């Protein structure tokens, strides 16, 4: 399990497979483990870079203020340290808001971009949802069933929660994964970052081909936020300088569409990024 020094902290990372680079940007709770079910399939097509952001999982967790700028600057430093000039970026949940921020700040480092379950700006409902996560994490702990009840009910579809992979096993599993990957102070900073986020003004800076993905039953980051927010559909409509862009709705899926409907979710991501890779290769061939 390699680690590398980035901006003064040790960052855990893992490379799997061969092909164009694909960086997985994790969400607010379970770090790189959120991609555990996805990485093997992706590694058949790409060279997948999984990592734990500062404050998460096996990376260092210094006491400090965590922001999207801190994490985005770590991402570019990680790419520098690994000698990666350009990479596909797939962000899910908070990883997608971070991915959008990263893509706007460092557009030249992005090959193809996938934003899954993404919020550019939180409406009042989303702000309340993240406030509740903070309350539960602070008073019961990040490894508590109480927090996991909230995370499961907002991340997974009702069908998933009632199915063979849902129920109390999912709650206990998420509590354990969350407990070992993040502490309450970092999760609270992450929630504040999500409450305060507003990348609507930066969307025009994103130049990479971009795929926006959202589950049709997502109650945390739905395609349409309320009027004071900006959800996936808003993002798609405002990517005015993306080389090209696509919008995919994953059926029968909640926020965590990678787990709710992995088949369709993986297929649209692989299909999109493969086309981006082929386009680049053929452009290189012409040049």
């Amino acid at each position, binding site marked *: 399990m390699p680690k590398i020094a980035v901006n003064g902290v040790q960052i855990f990372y893992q490379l799997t497979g061969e092909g164009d680079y694909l960086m997985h940007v994790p969400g607010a709770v379970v770090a790189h483990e959120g991609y555990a079910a996805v990485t093997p399939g992706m590694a058949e097509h790409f060279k997948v870079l999984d990592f734990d952001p500062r404050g998460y999982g096996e990376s260092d967790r210094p006491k400090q203020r965590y922001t999207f700028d801190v994490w985005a600057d770590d991402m570019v430093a990680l790419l520098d340290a690994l000698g990666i000039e350009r990479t596909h970026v797939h962000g899910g949940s908070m990883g997608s808001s971070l991915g959008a921020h990263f893509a706007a700040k460092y557009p030249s480092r992005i090959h193809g971009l996938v934003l899954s379950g993404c919020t550019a700006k939180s409406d*009042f*409902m*989303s702000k309340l949802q993240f406030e*509740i996560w903070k309350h539960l994490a602070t008073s019961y702990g990040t490894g508590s069933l109480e927090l996991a*009840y909230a995370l499961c009910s907002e991340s997974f579809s009702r069908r998933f929660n009632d*199915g063979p992979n849902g129920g109390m096993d999912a709650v206990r599993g998420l509590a354990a994964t969350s407990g070992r990957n993040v502490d309450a102070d970092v999760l609270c900073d992450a929630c504040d970052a999500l409450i305060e986020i507003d990348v609507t003004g930066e969307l025009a800076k994103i130049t990479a081909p971009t795929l926006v993905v959202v589950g049709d039953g997502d109650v945390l980051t739905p395609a349409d936020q309320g009027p004071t927010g900006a959800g996936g559909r808003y993002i798609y409509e405002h990517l005015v300088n993306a080389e090209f862009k696509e919008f995919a709705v994953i059926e029968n899926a909640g926020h965590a569409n990678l787990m709710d409907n992995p088949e369709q979710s993986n297929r649209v991501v692989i299909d999109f990024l493969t086309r981006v890779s082929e386009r680049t290769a053929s452009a290189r061939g012409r040049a």
Partner: protein
Amino acid sequence: MAKVKVNGCDIWYEISGEGAPVVQIGGAVSGHEGYALVTPEMAKHFSVLDYDHRGYGLSDRPKQKYTMDIWADDLKGLLDELGIQKTHVHGGSMGGYIAIKFATKYPERVDRLVINGAAAKSDFTCRCHFEVWKAVALKYGMDSDELAQELCTKAFSRAWLDGPQGGEQAVKGMRESTAPNASLHVFLDACDAMIETDVTPQLSRVSSPTLLMVGSEDLLTPLDQGPQGAGMRYMHEHIKGSELWIAEGAGHGLLVESAQKSVEKVIDFLSA
């Protein structure tokens, strides 16, 4: 404003207007105040009976185990005391859970039945929501902003929360209607009662014309629960001759978000 002894407990009630009787059953947090916007309109057409169920508002709040059966039996006792043989019944949110329990247990007492935002059986997602309610209430109390925040995320739609009545004033309003009306020990039981309820085997006993109302954006008691639950559509399919009515754009609290249209629908249905 009066009280009457029902099954050993002082129950607060109020009757407004003239006409056929309608009893309105409150939800898990705000007692009869949940119908504050509804009663004046309803009272132009009906004799409206508002009351606080046991454990809520101005009624007694004994230390005991609270269940849907106890609340349904109290409603029957209240009707007996008031000499009301048969009445229209309107229940919203947990009041809907109580109404459906009442209608399966005492079908002969129900003239017409209106259920809004309830379930015949909670799915696992519902259970998670109620577990979070319990956790937040236990740690922060019934008069906390934290609980009011959580309740707002389940009671209202995104669009409404972003609108002129939403935002921090919605949280404040929720806190102010919860704090005086609900006690912690009762609320915890209410959450468990909603988690454990299952009236699916008894739905065929409902013999009254029934209107089922749900907001299209309801996240708590949506049109369709997961496969382990039984939501509004399930009830529609299993209550003979029932009518399903969807308030487009509204969340769980459709009597607030879509007040005028919802009340008009209730009046139309009960007047038929």
